[in-house]
């Protein structure tokens, strides 16, 4: 039977933070993907036992290569393996990229509001990257993008240098909200994202932005409710829940 499982080769690993790693995979025959999609990864033990988990694609390149960034959950089954064990040259079974809903459409001229909790920044990074390489004269390429990224502390931020670089564009705004540990010398203390900060920093409902929220289920739930209360249309809000991984905003 023909199923969607393909063998991918790990062609590079980069430590993103002390607890997260980016894996670069080559999927032979892949001809790009849409920004925001995910893959399913299947691990098989010697006795045939398997475990499947989903991981968003972080990259936005046209060819056979994709990047995933995995955050380790210490007592998890799959993520510690991907963060510590997998090495360049290893093979992994991958299904996808799949999912045509939580994706940014480069033909859509709408302003875009991205809201990430922790590792939820991964698919939103793919959207920022796709936006950065889009023709600046095109509908999507000329759309304003804002990222609100809620993260434990400065050391937990993914893609730091690249985010700073992207934020130089007049079309792109990046706001980091530190929930537990503020950077040294920061004027404001670390605290959870709240409705007031969200509405102050996000694009207003009046702009009718396309909104993408991604992170732990409790985070996504809370933020989506706040946005609806602030007048955003539920139709314009797309969500990707990663599961009950703890962390509230």
């Amino acid at each position, binding site marked *: 039977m*023909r*199923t*969607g*499982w*393909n063998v991918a080769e790990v062609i590079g690993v980069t430590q993103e933070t002390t607890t997260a790693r980016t894996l670069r995979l080559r999927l*032979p*025959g*892949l001809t790009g*993907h*849409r920004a925001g999609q*995910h*893959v*399913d990864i299947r691990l098989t033990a010697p006795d045939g036992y*398997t475990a*499947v988990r*989903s991981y968003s694609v972080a990259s936005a390149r046209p060819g056979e290569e994709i990047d995933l960034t995995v955050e380790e959950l210490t007592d998890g089954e799959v993520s510690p393996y991907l963060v510590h064990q997998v090495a360049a040259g290893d093979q992994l079974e991958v*299904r*996808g*990229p*799949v*999912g*045509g*809903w*939580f*994706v940014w*459409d480069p033909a859509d001229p709408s302003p875009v509001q991205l809201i990430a909790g922790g590792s939820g920044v991964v698919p939103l990074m793919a959207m920022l990257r796709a936006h950065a390489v889009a023709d600046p004269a095109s509908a999507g390429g000329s759309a304003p993008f804002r990222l609100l990224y809620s993260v434990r502390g400065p050391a937990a931020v993914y893609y730091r240098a690249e985010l700073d670089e992207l934020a130089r564009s007049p079309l792109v705004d990046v706001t980091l909200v530190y929930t537990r540990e503020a950077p040294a010398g920061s004027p404001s203390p670390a605290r959870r994202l709240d409705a007031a900060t969200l509405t102050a920093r996000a694009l207003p409902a009046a702009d009718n932005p396309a909104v993408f929220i991604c992170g732990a*289920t*409790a985070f996504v*739930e809370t933020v989506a409710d706040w946005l609806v209360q602030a007048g955003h249309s539920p139709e314009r809000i*797309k*969500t*990707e*829940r*990663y*599961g*009950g991984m703890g962390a509230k905003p």
Partner: protein
Amino acid sequence: MTDSADLDYLDGNAAAGPLSEFFAVDVVSARGRCAHCGRTAALATARLYPSSHGLLLRCPGCTEILLRLVDSGDSVCLDLHGLSFVELHRDEGGSQPNPQPPA
């Protein structure tokens, strides 16, 4: 614990992989109608309960089951009787073929 259990669901979008074994196009972008309450929305917006014995998609309106999928290794079993129709838009993402393994 009780509360966290209630929050233990994902978006229907996360079912895209398992459903790609059945459908040649990305079916989570398709609109489906709940056979129970009639709510019609993209399957990606339904609630997915993954930690259950199989994959369950529930209607966010009435919480009834739209779709069930059980993977027993040798076979995959899909029950769609909670959906009274599914509509695909050809010119949107819904018509994007799922990636296929190279021959």
